């Protein structure tokens, strides 16, 4: 337990000194200095609640003007995050280390009390060096017709330098599109700056056009963290739409565009018959390869910038069937498109599988051995599925992956990449959406083929993650279930307990001040619910799990002791302040614990001791009282002694009562004994006197 303490403390200290993440801690502590229009963040930033910056809004993520003090810039803006879209807090540490005038600079991040909503909100504070976006955010698929030279100088070069810096810090941007590119007011009016990428989960607000095919097929919040190759693709699409004179796919839906990309490739879909200069053509072809392994890397880009001509790579052709298969009234010749649409008619897909029609099509019309092997493997897996409700949907999800390994998992309303499941799960939960489909995904094993067959990185750790999540969802204890899966699958998710509705708790250390604040204003019935227990168990397993049996016990006194010990451990380990209100709540809710003492005297003594301690707010001392193993054992031992004493008294009482039943004779024997003694003494006296008078006196 103690091993973890110095490490965590050290981490906190480094964080505070070196990067804007430090403000996360301070911000939460010092957010009280507010007036009607200003919210003070980290002592040196004032967020102006009455000055929203709508041009920087990102859907639910609202932007506000902010003013810096001391060494900070006067012109800042604050982005207020939403719980349904967990911000990339861990990425923000790397982001803050990227120094590039073409990337909006992060000044700080952390939670702060937000008076308009009377709750804590998580904010990112950036330097406001951004002008207007180069295209309106409503115009997602533009055809801007910029000159190639302007694009190169003002967009390509600055963004390539940003991408290089980000690669050096191992950070994927995942929000590269013209709506997130801004005219730069600082480094030159023409050059653009790239907007931030931290306030929402990766790619969740990126328009579908800018995502590679596999990611575009998934729901936006379910795309997962993405890769550098995905950033390169987004960059390529951005350049293409800025350069092109017309949109060949104008008026078409996202789905049609994706289908076109699958059929014709991204380059052809985006640019059609657009005429581009040789260098630009080469750049866009390189960036828009649909196969991520063929796509240009930053090294390729650097070579291209140095003027070296790169030999064009041959893009592997997608498999096409010699004859189509009829599915859902449509003819399909490409397995990818069939995989994409399979979930729309799950009963029909089940029929195709069970009649062998699909296998025949793969065998005779596709003639791709890899697909055939995958399909056979999936068919074997399917035979072990429960034929319960949703069987056809599960079967279809597995079949889709066999047909197209990189496609998302399609299950009823869900379209997700395995790495993006956690964020999607959180988003659905916060928005109070129907969770049954998510629970099915976790409960059944049909997702496993999708993870195993996928080429993308990270696939190796995913099976274990889903296996663990399955065990959690199938358990009913307080520390498992859906809540545990939330925090396990999305480590950046704040605690979503209804108790903490108005708080933004991201770490166990932040939980204590929040609970203290709650106890200051009210006396809640419970402090630890399923969310808080699961949250703590995931975030601070080593320190919390020793008390998990108590926390999840059915006996209220054990639950209470578990809570006290858990809170005290966090307070002690993190050397947190004293929490008087929380200690007061504990003192007021110890009746169940007191009831476990047989000895009323000891109970009263402990009660008065705790009443004294609660004023100090030291939870460790309260826990220390109950940690003494002799306390309860001694009480039980003394209780059994008292029981024996009681039994002895009872026996004595019965004996006396039995004797007294015959009151007439009670004591007669003793009385006669006393009488005989008196009589003997008296007779002796008489005899001595008689002897005296008769013998001596004559």
């Amino acid at each position, binding site marked *: 337990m103690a091993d973890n303490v110095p490490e965590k403390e050290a981490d906190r200290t480094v964080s505070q000194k070196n990067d804007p993440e430090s403000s996360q801690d301070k911000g939460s502590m010092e957010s009280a200095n507010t007036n009607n229009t200003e919210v003070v963040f980290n002592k040196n930033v004032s967020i102006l609640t009455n000055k929203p910056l709508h041009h920087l809004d990102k859907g639910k993520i609202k932007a506000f003007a902010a003013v810096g003090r001391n060494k900070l810039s006067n012109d800042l803006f604050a982005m207020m995050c939403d719980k349904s879209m967990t911000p990339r807090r861990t990425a923000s540490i790397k982001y803050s280390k990227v120094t590039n005038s073409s990337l909006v600079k992060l000044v700080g991040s952390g939670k702060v009390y937000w008076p308009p909503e009377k709750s804590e909100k998580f904010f990112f504070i950036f330097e406001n060096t951004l002008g207007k976006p180069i295209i309106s955010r409503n115009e997602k698929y533009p055809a801007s017709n910029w000159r190639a030279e302007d694009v190169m100088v003002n967009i390509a070069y600055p963004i390539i330098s940003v991408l290089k810096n980000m690669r050096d810090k191992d950070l994927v941007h995942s929000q590269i599109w013209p709506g997130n590119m801004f005219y730069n007011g600082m480094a030159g009016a023409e050059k653009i700056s790239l907007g931030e990428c931290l306030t929402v989960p990766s790619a969740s607000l990126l328009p579908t056009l800018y995502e590679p095919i596999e990611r575009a097929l998934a729901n936006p919040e379910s795309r997962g963290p993405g890769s550098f190759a995905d950033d390169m693709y987004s960059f390529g699409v951005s350049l293409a739409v800025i350069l092109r004179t017309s949109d060949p796919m104008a008026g078409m839906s996202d789905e049609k565009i994706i289908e076109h990309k699958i059929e014709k490739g991204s380059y052809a879909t985006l640019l059609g018959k657009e005429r581009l200069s040789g260098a630009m053509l080469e750049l866009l072809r390189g960036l828009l390869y649909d196969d991520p392994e063929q796509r240009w890397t930053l090294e390729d880009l650097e070579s291209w910038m140095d003027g070296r001509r790169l030999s064009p790579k041959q893009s592997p052709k997608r498999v096409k069937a010699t004859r189509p298969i009829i599915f859902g009234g449509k003819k399909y010749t490409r397995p990818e498109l069939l995989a994409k649409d399979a979930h729309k008619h799950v009963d029909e897909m089940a029929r195709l599988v069970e009649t062998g029609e699909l296998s025949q099509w793969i065998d005779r019309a596709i003639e791709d051995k890899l697909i055939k092997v995958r399909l056979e493997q999936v068919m074997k897996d399917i035979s072990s599925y429960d034929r319960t409700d949703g069987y056809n949907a599960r079967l279809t999800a597995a079949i889709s992956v066999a047909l197209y390994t990189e496609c998302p998992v399609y299950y009823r309303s869900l379209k997700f990449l395995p790495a993006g499941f956690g964020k999607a799960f959180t988003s659905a939960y916060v928005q109070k959406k129907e969770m049954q489909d998510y629970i099915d995904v976790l409960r059944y094993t049909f997702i496993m083929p999708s993870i195993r067959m996928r080429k993308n990185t990270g696939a190796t750790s995913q099976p274990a993650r889903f296996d663990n999540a399955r065990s959690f969802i199938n358990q009913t204890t307080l520390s498992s279930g859906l809540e545990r899966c939330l925090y396990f699958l999305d480590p950046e998710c704040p605690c979503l307990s209804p108790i903490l509705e108005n708080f933004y708790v991201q770490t166990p250390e932040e939980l204590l001040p929040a609970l203290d604040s709650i106890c200051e204003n009210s006396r809640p019935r419970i402090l630890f619910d399923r969310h808080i227990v699961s949250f703590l168990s995931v975030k601070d397993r080593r320190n919390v799990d020793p008390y998990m049996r108590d926390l999840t016990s059915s006996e*209220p006194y054990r639950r209470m002791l578990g809570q006290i010990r858990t809170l005290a451990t966090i307070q002690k380990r993190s050397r947190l302040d004293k929490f008087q209100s929380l200690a007061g709540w504990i003192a007021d809710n110890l009746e169940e614990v007191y009831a476990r003492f*047989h000895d009323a005297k000891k109970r009263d003594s402990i009660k008065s001791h705790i009443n004294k301690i609660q004023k100090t707010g030291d939870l460790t001392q309260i826990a220390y009282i109950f940690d003494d193993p002799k306390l*309860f054992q001694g009480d*039980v031992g003394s209780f059994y002694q008292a029981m024996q004493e009681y039994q002895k008294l009872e026996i004595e009482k019965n004996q006396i009562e039995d004797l007294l039943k015959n009151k007439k004779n009670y004591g007669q024997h003793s*009385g*006669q004994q006393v*009488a005989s003694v008196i009589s003997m003494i*008296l*007779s002796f006296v*008489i005899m001595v006197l008689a002897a005296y008078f008769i013998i001596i006196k004559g």
Partner: protein
Amino acid sequence: MTSKKSKSKKQVKFKDVIFVISSLVTMLVFFPTTIVIFIGMLPTLVAYIVDRSIEKNKTFTIGALNFAGCFPYLLTLWTKDNSIDGAVNIIQSPKAIIVMYTLAGIGYIINWAVTIMVSSLMVQKAQMRLKRIENEKNFLEDRWGEEVNGKYDLDHHGFPIQKEENMEA
């Protein structure tokens, strides 16, 4: 075994015979004394017959004072005229008989009065003890809870099992 039992029976009988013979001899040797004691100690004999207790405390009480009543006349007999006539004279004297029997009566009164007195004291003492026991039990129940009376089925922590089930429910 049987031979041993018969031996012990024979021994007891022999002892009794020796005792009876020696008593008769003694009585014959001290015959005047025997006459005075036999007549003077008649109340004790009656008390012995009436007293059914094993310890014969009542007999001792009456007998001791009865003997004290006889003792001055026995001394007179032994110091003056230790003969059958002397003994007959004594037992024919109403005064001597009154003295002997009065002291026996006093012995009876002492037995009666002291027994009542002691018995009553002991009843009171027992009742006080009962009160104290009740107080001690109440104290134990107040301090340790009702379950200290041992009338409940307890779990290994000493709490009533029924109560625990209710808590869980």
